[in-house]
């Protein structure tokens, strides 16, 4: 317990002036995270403005209190629901990043089929499949019937459009928030492709 306290204190030290940002990939392709890295050299400025909490590029496993949570991908299985709720509970501002988070995106194309059909296509009717059967083990999580955009599960504060949103979109958003400005995108940053 004592150790836990000091962890939290340590975590908050030196962070006062920086925005604390967490990111998570749910059912997406990781392209949105890649696009954030496409800010290139601006990452050297970014680390002056923000401190990363739980993200795939840090070792932080449990999300702490954050200013901003960026969510890539829609909600496709029980784990996604759990992670998303945890982010909502801990982030002042929650952002749906990219088409998959905003609408379900390409993975939501499976919604027109039964989940069973999708599984059978991959594991039973596929070409060159040995030992055909649908994986079924307590160790793999339950899939949801449909893929959902994240705002169907939690309240969302901002939506960044694009597949993926461009690096400039991320940059505009994060610098606006860091400066305390109202977030606004020029028309040129609002598009899918």
């Amino acid at each position, binding site marked *: 317990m004592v*150790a836990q306290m000091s*962890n939290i204190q*340590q*975590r908050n030290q030196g962070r006062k002036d920086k925005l604390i940002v967490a990111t998570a*990939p749910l*059912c*997406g*392709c*990781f*392209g*949105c*995270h*890649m*696009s954030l*890295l*496409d800010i*290139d*050299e601006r*990452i*050297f400025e970014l680390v002056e403005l923000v401190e*990363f909490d*739980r*993200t*795939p*590029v*840090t*070792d*932080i*496993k449990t999300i*702490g209190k954050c200013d901003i949570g960026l969510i890539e991908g829609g909600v*496709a*299985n029980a*784990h996604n629901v759990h*992670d998303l709720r945890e982010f909502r509970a801990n982030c002042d501002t929650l952002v749906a990043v990219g088409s998959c988070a905003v609408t379900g*995106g*390409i*993975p939501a*194309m*499976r919604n027109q089929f039964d989940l069973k059909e*999708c*599984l059978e*296509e*991959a*594991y039973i009717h*596929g*070409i*060159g*499949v*040995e*030992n055909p*059967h649908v*994986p079924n*083990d307590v*160790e*793999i*999580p339950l899939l949801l019937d449909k893929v959902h955009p994240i705002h169907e599960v939690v309240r969302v504060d901002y939506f960044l459009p694009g*597949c*993926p949103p461009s*690096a400039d979109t991320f940059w505009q958003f994060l610098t606006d928030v860091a400066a305390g400005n109202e977030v606004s995108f020029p028309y040129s940053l609002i598009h899918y*492709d």
Partner: protein
Amino acid sequence: MTSPLETAERPQDMKRIVIEPLTRVEGHGKVTLLQGKNRNIRQARLHITEFRGFEKFIQGRPYWELPVLVQRLCGICPVSHHLAAAKATDMIVGAGELTPTATKIRRLMHLGQTVQSHALHFFHLCSPDLLFGFDDDVQHRNITGVIEDFPDIARQGVLLRKFGQEVIRVTAGKRIHGTGAIPGGVNKSLSLDEIRYLQDDIARNIGWAQGALELLKNIISEHYEHHMQFGTIQSNMMSMVRDDGAFELYHGGLRAKAVNGDTIFDHVDYVNYNDYIRESVKDWSYMKFPFITSLGEEEGWYRVGPLARINNCDYMRMPLAETERQEFMALGNGLPVQSTMAYHWARLIELLYCTEAIAELLCDPDLVRKELRIQGNLQGSGTGVVEAPRGTLFHHYEIDERGIVEKASLIVSTTNNNQAMNESIRRVANQYLDGNRLNEALLNHVEVAIRAYDPCLSCATHAMGKMPMELNLVDASGELVDRLEKRVTGRIMRTI
């Protein structure tokens, strides 16, 4: 060759340890271990817990959507999917041989892809481990830490990745999920200005790639024995090679070599890959387990990616990379190099190769010509294969007479390494965990072994990065008896 640790008898009598989440596999992959008497490890499994169903939901879509649609499997190597699908649709439109301009634009795009992906893996993900040590403070052991302590190395990594992404943007219109390749060709060639823009940086980038390789070799040689045996397994190797046996990433035949260096098959036309490879389904993972059909499931699993490609090719066309390849192959004394950590080494030789190959290709006058596309008669099916950054990537599609997709089959690069990653974990479990109480070394070592493969489970799942972890030890009645957590500070804590 499959380890006996794959499946334990009477698992209900054993202690179950779960390592979850592995962020690199999107937080949805995990490792489970079963401990029997005397804490002996009896079972170790890497489970991939993500499923998206692309094979089904692209049915009913027109074939020309495939190159832009299927790349949404993976934002880390979208160009590889873009090009594998494009090659399959080349066959579907009956294009035969593409124009030199189209082929070279695609090759350039693919080289850019490999540069950005390998740079990302080395600098953004692995360099913190290698520079600071596996047991460095977790809060510090990430790209931000590298920026603070080694700003020059961080800058080189960021700029090398940027260069790869810029090659992609110039050839495909957009860095992630571009549109450059179309059935039968490409939709644009390059302008002289674009070529000059890319040439501007090229010598510097080649130098940085060399520097990264030197850095890695120094780190490995400091603890040579340790790195060479760590998580090492004996496996077959599969990759694409050019007709003359040269290293190849975009187009060639399939070659597989056995542990003793013998050829299993060679120069196989990839259109027939289905005769050589099958995929097995196991209950406990959404990722299938491919194997070489003639050797069967037990003996036929193999590795793909940088390690397999460098081991399999006869030579590399680029001079700096070829010198490095020869030095690397000497490690194996005439046999394929099997060290799992050698993946890092092989990957950086490829990074160097790609920067050299881009420099060469940018001088090619075909890049600015305007013959972009070939069209023929619609065919019923098409297969496209490329060497993606992480290994051989297979796309196969069948269409009806209106051009609507009826069937699709995809084997993504990392899936090829499924059994191998499982075997490496079992090896690490044997080497470091067997008979021991849970400790932080276990966490670290399992993490490092998986990371060497650079698994881009985006394609079957998606994620990357460091692996924050939690270990729970549950006894046979389901009661939690031990629990370790790797905290934000990097401390491993027993929280029970």
